[in-house]
């Protein structure tokens, strides 16, 4: 068996048993397992090579030249290699812009585009492994060139061997901030400061979850990272306010820590305050979305075995809930087994037998997550910005003031707010503002984002041209709906 690489859009061998979206750890593991079990599998991914964000470039980098990425990173190699040996079809540089769950049609239908050509692909089930994105960190000046997410800097490091030049400041909270700081230091970047915005008192709260954390795989990793960064860069904790100065690009950072206002010059500012699931595709497909208070994030609702609220649609990895790369791969396998069982391609007892050890392993990797979630919960002022001029929606350039004033009109929720002020109506489809809008509305109304809700999204979740859309096959029924005639008149 060998992999069939989809180079052109007509190479698809539709219909498939399983369409997997995303070539990160969850998608790679799921596609590999399903293909090895004899299913007809296709894996779609937007990027040129497998790995997702966490293992980005893992098939292209070498340990000799990119050793600074750390041993965890290289775990991705085995996943990518197993996948490349599998019989799964692989559509790289291919965007999935819609999923219609089975229902109206017998099979699921995915709208996909590759090289500017669109096509509809059928599959009996869909497994969304869309991964995570960084929680937006809206501060004054965050739209300036020279300001990026920490994850973006890590991507540049992994995919191009690029390090930010000039004076670099990292700001925010969470383990990734320190991981990136240590990677950048190892790559000889000029990291002048790490500004930690976590609330100092959170560590006391988190201690209640310490016993489980002590047995978690994260503890030694975390402590050694912290020590390493502290040795080599200035770490400022207790940062309660942050803004980025500059006219046409970032020139410096102004922050308040323990009552002291400080300004530092900077050429590159990297922001990070944790990661949240990428839910756009699941949301637009119609999967139920819920709020997770502990993680302060909206998540697609899944049962313990990867099933979403829609029959035939499964979600695995960080796209379902944040558990990290190792956990994502395991959850991908768990979901793939569920698909095989539900499709009748594997006997129920065989599925259960294989699920059991994977569930134990998944549980092990989630140990200590509670501690991290509490310890690194972003402070309120960085989730729901108080400075009225902060841009919340980067596409439509809607300010926190506008969001707060519109909330005060009594709007029933974020969807009404969205139409009133266009917040979330730009090309990013609310990815960069959804979380913040719900946080601000919750702040204004003294409730939780869960009670506020979030955007209901529509396909296409990624833009495609009208020409691409027009090239797709249609139905007499659709023609009737538009023209009142079931045949094209000329």
């Amino acid at each position: 068996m060998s992999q069939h690489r989809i180079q052109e859009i007509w190479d698809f061998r539709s219909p498939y048993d399983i369409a997997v979206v995303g070539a990160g750890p969850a998608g790679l593991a799921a596609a590999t397992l399903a293909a090895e079990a004899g299913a007809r599998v296709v894996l779609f991914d937007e990027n040129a090579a497998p790995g997702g964000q966490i293992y980005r470039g893992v098939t292209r980098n070498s340990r000799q030249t990119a050793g600074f990425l750390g041993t965890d990173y290289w775990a991705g190699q085995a996943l990518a290699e197993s996948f490349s040996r599998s019989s799964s079809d692989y559509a790289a540089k291919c965007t999935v812009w819609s999923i219609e769950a089975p229902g109206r049609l017998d099979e699921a239908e995915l709208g996909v585009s590759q090289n500017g050509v669109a096509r509809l692909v059928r599959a009996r089930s869909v497994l969304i492994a869309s991964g995570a994105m960084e929680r937006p960190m809206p501060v004054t000046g965050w739209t300036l060139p020279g300001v990026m997410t920490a994850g973006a800097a890590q991507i540049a490091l992994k995919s191009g061997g690029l390090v930010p030049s000039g004076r670099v400041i990292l700001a925010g909270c969470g383990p990734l901030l320190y991981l990136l700081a240590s990677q950048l230091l190892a790559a000889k970047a000029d990291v002048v400061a790490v500004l930690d915005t976590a609330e100092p008192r959170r560590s006391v709260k988190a201690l209640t979850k310490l016993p489980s954390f002590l047995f978690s795989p994260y503890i030694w990793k975390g402590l050694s990272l912290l020590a390493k960064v502290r040795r080599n860069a200035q770490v400022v904790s207790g940062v309660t306010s942050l803004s980025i100065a500059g006219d046409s690009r970032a020139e410096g950072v102004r922050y308040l820590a323990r009552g002291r206002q400080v300004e530092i010059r900077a050429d590159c500012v990297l922001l990070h305050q944790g990661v949240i699931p990428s839910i756009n595709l699941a949301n637009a497909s119609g999967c139920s979305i819920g709020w997770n208070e502990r993680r302060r994030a909206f998540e697609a609702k899944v049962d313990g075995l990867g099933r979403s609220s829609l029959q035939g649609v499964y979600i695995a990895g960080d796209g379902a809930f944040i558990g990290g790369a190792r956990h994502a791969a395991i959850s991908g396998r768990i979901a793939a087994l569920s698909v095989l069982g539900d499709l009748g391609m594997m006997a129920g007892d065989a599925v259960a037998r294989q699920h059991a050890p994977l569930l134990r392993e998944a549980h092990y990797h989630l140990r200590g997550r509670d501690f991290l979630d509490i310890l690194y919960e972003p402070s309120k002022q960085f989730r729901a910005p108080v400075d009225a001029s902060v841009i919340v929606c980067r596409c439509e350039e809607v300010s926190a003031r506008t969001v707060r004033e519109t909330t005060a009109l009594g709007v029933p929720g974020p969807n009404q707010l969205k139409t009133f002020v266009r917040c979330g109506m730009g090309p990013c489809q609310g990815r960069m503002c959804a979380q913040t809008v719900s946080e601000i509305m919750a702040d204004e109304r003294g409730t939780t984002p869960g009670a506020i809700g979030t955007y209901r999204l529509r396909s296409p979740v990624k833009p495609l041209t009208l020409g691409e859309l027009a090239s797709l096959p249609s139905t007499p029924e659709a023609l009737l709906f538009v023209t009142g005639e079931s045949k094209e008149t000329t």
Partner: protein
Amino acid sequence: MFARLHEIADPVIFTFDGVSIRAERGQTLATALLAGGVDVFRWSVVGGVPRAPYCLMGVCFDCLVTVDGVQNRQSCLIEVRQGMDVRSQAGGRQVNTAGVR
């Protein structure tokens, strides 16, 4: 903006607003631009203010540029190629008016 850790091993040459830039084959256009010293990719649609990549992973849509005449392409999701004609953008899409088609 960004410095390379290694010399370019397999170079391609492309242009940004007419200026030639060398890049490593296979890297994304967005990182090629950043490494090539480009700090402003476009001017925003609503406010006309400068923007550059924020997420580099296909989420933020701030890295949009015009590639070989095709507007609003996410430069973080496409690979740089030899001879690519890349241009910055100001504002929203310019439509091909005056009956060219």
